[in-house]
């Protein structure tokens, strides 16, 4: 009886750790989903490539700031050139702002002239909650070994005025450059800014 109790005591903290927020320096949580073109995307299959996760909602003013100014698209293009896999994720629940069908999502990509490698519709919010994604945009950078090396804001100017983008320090660009140079990512965790992810 005592040993059963002790076993439970040992296991208890382990069970609560099962859903802890993703930690810098630890493996990024595994997920799998179909993208808007029906292709299967699984994080562990992307090992060997750097991966960027971008939570988005095309109607959120902060996302509009980055897409309207062409900033996000430019970043995606730079990433694509370096073989970085960019995954945009929409975790808006049904009937909430930003929730789209696959066709609508593809149309938005075309209109925005965006170039993500994949766009995933996470309607039930599972991937969002797995990563504790709070805002749109909310960014995560995962290195080639599958370790989470950055989480947080896209840059350090959190207003909604597009004018400030050019003076802002872009954390994603900095992280990707650090990874390319084989250095540890200097700024690994910042406060993400944006509209709240529209979970259920």
């Amino acid at each position: 009886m005592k040993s059963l109790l002790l076993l439970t005591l040992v296991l208890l903290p382990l069970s609560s750790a099962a859903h802890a927020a993703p930690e810098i320096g630890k493996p990024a949580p595994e997920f799998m989903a179909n993208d808007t073109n029906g292709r299967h995307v699984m994080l562990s299959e992307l090992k060997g490539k750097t991966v960027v996760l971008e939570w988005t909602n095309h109607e959120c003013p902060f996302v509009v700031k980055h897409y309207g100014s062409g900033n996000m698209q430019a970043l995606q293009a730079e990433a694509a050139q370096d073989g970085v896999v960019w995954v945009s994720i929409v975790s808006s629940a049904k009937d909430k702002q930003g929730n789209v069908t696959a066709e609508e999502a593809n149309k938005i990509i075309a209109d925005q002239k965006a170039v993500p490698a994949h766009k995933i519709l996470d309607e039930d919010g599972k991937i969002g909650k797995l990563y504790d994604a709070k805002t749109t945009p909310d960014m995560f950078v995962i290195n080639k070994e599958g370790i989470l090396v950055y989480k947080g804001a896209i840059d350090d100017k959190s207003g909604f005025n597009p004018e400030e983008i050019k003076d802002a320090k872009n954390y994603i660009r900095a992280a990707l450059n650090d990874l390319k140079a084989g250095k540890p990512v200097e700024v690994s965790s910042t406060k993400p800014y944006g509209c709240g992810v529209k979970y259920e």
Partner: protein
Amino acid sequence: MKLFKFGKNQHTAIMAGFLILYSLTAHAESTTKVPTVPYVETNLIPEFNSIIAGQTLYFAISQKHTEGWHTYWKNPGDSGETLSIEWSVPEGFKPNDIIYPAPSPQPTGPLMNFGYSGENTLLTSIDIPKNITADTVTINAKLSWLVCHDICIPETKDFSISLPVTNQDIAPAHPALFEAARLSIPESKAWQGTIEEMNQNIIITYQLDDEGLLMLKDSKNFLFFPEEWGLIKYAAPQDIKVTDNKLVVKLERDSRALNEIQTLNSVLTYEDNSGAKKSVALSVAVMPKSAISGGAEAVPEKSSFVTPPSFIQAIFLAILGGFILNLMPCVFPVLSIKTLSLIKMSDREQRHANLHGIFYTLGILVCFGVIAGLLIILKSAGQQIGWGFQLQNPIVILLLAYLLFAMALNLSGFFEIKSGPLANIGHKLASHHGYKGSFFTGVLATIVATPCTAPFMATAMGYALTQPPFVALTIFMALGFGLALPYLLLCFIPPLRKSLPKPGAWMETFRQFMSFPLFASVAWLIWVYTQQVDGSYGTLLGLAGLILIAFGIWISRHEPKKQPWKTGIHALSIGSIILAFVIAGLSHTNATPSKTDDMAVQSMNHTAYSVASLEKLLAGNDPIFVDMTAAWCITCKVNERIAIMTDATQDLFKRQNVQLVIGDWTNQNPEITKFLADYGRNGVPLYVFYGARNLETGKRPEPKILPQILTSGIISEFINGEE
């Protein structure tokens, strides 16, 4: 004059004309994209309608939210954006930060934000320079804010305020507005706080003064709003209560490192006993102030490295430790002899075995209670002591040695005790002394157990002495219970007793054999004693004391019947014993307490521990292995011999440039006591490994605590970073 009459055709023409005009203007409107009514009606209102040089002019930012919409506090929470102002002011005018009223929680789905709804007023101010040349000053401000319902809309509004410059005080323009705004700002309280991380929580404890206690003790619905991001999970429930004179705030932890901030400012809102909503602004220092200035790295923040056991875990560890204590050479003989007397019990007595068990347990518990109580009192009186403190005193060591020596002599047959509490150690089981005897055997078992520590005990003891007295006492009782457990089980479970061998002549031999573990314990205590006392006479004096005890005992058994010899011999006997005690009383500790005299340990290349010596090493780049030990700690000495002093480990240290730091706690050493306390411990051994400095990041990894039972393998695992 006849009026121009509109016929049908003219109607149509004029209608068409109007339609065309209307559509043109409508088109013009849609291209300017100006929302007709913002979701928040915002106004920027100066307190006075004039500028007075050298003063600070306050502005109210009044906000009227559309129903269901909200704006954000200084820390907006999981998402959102607080209000910002872009000022355009003349030369010399200095705008200040926004001052926020107490926020309210604004939950959205699983996310939590902090902000405002309905009507609220923020405050801000501008410092006006002393010299103004103009007659009128124009201040422009562009206010931007995010207002959200389930979706978010950014809104802006421009203000241009022109005010005349005067040098006379004039009445405030909106006294009620500003007074209400000022009242809604949380009042700053200087309550001292401490912050710690435990498991998945952050616990902030504020010390309340009388006023604070009065304010909070009957209040409810506490909510804590931190100004810093990423420390706590905003959506998680908060556990805030007032206990004794402290406000304890327990919050679920989020992932941002605590050591990134110096001070955590926050707002606490609550409802007082009349239901009124109140708020206070609090502050707690996060980084401990480093004792060293300049570039030297302070000893790393330890609170996050120790995951102390929970209360239940500590109880179990204590019971387990107590149980294992029975196997230690100091306790085992006592247990065996007590078991022997159980075996010898007549059948009639067997029925009373239970009671014997209970009295024995009571004896142990009472004795533990006294020791624990003493420890707790001394600790709260500020003494830097830990478990084993009694062993840091050579007087106690020598007296314990005398006691064990006398017991060993008794067991070996050197003398017998016919009556009294110690009779139970011997053959007889005088029935009406039985229970009292069992009680005192329990006391005796506890006393002789004190020099020994068992595995698991250290963690439980360490935890115990950091807790309030009631908790500490309970854990000590659990330890005592564990110690009593084997005998208790034997007393209560007849089948167990039946499995013991039957009485016989072997018992006498066994009893004499049991004297040897006790003699061994005496030898070890004398060895400890010699390391504790000044000068090279320690060995001689300790042994002399033992001889005097033995002589005193022997001589009292050979008292001649005839006077005056009888009294003379009696006096000689007592005199010997007293002399032994005098030797004990005169022992005083070694002048250099931290250096170990253990020659074998001395042969290893090491630095003696002190706060200064460790900090000096930490400022360097080499890995550091800290060994906190004491001469009276058997586990420590065993570990040193089989794990640290081995060739394998010494080579590893040499190859990796590991600096060995040894702290000898044989005698009292407050610096070592504090180091142990920082790691949640209260006794030795403690092994801590500080990894080498990563030359790229300039930081050392977090210190790691090694297990209390070491092998060379375990040490190399930790040093090679495989742990």
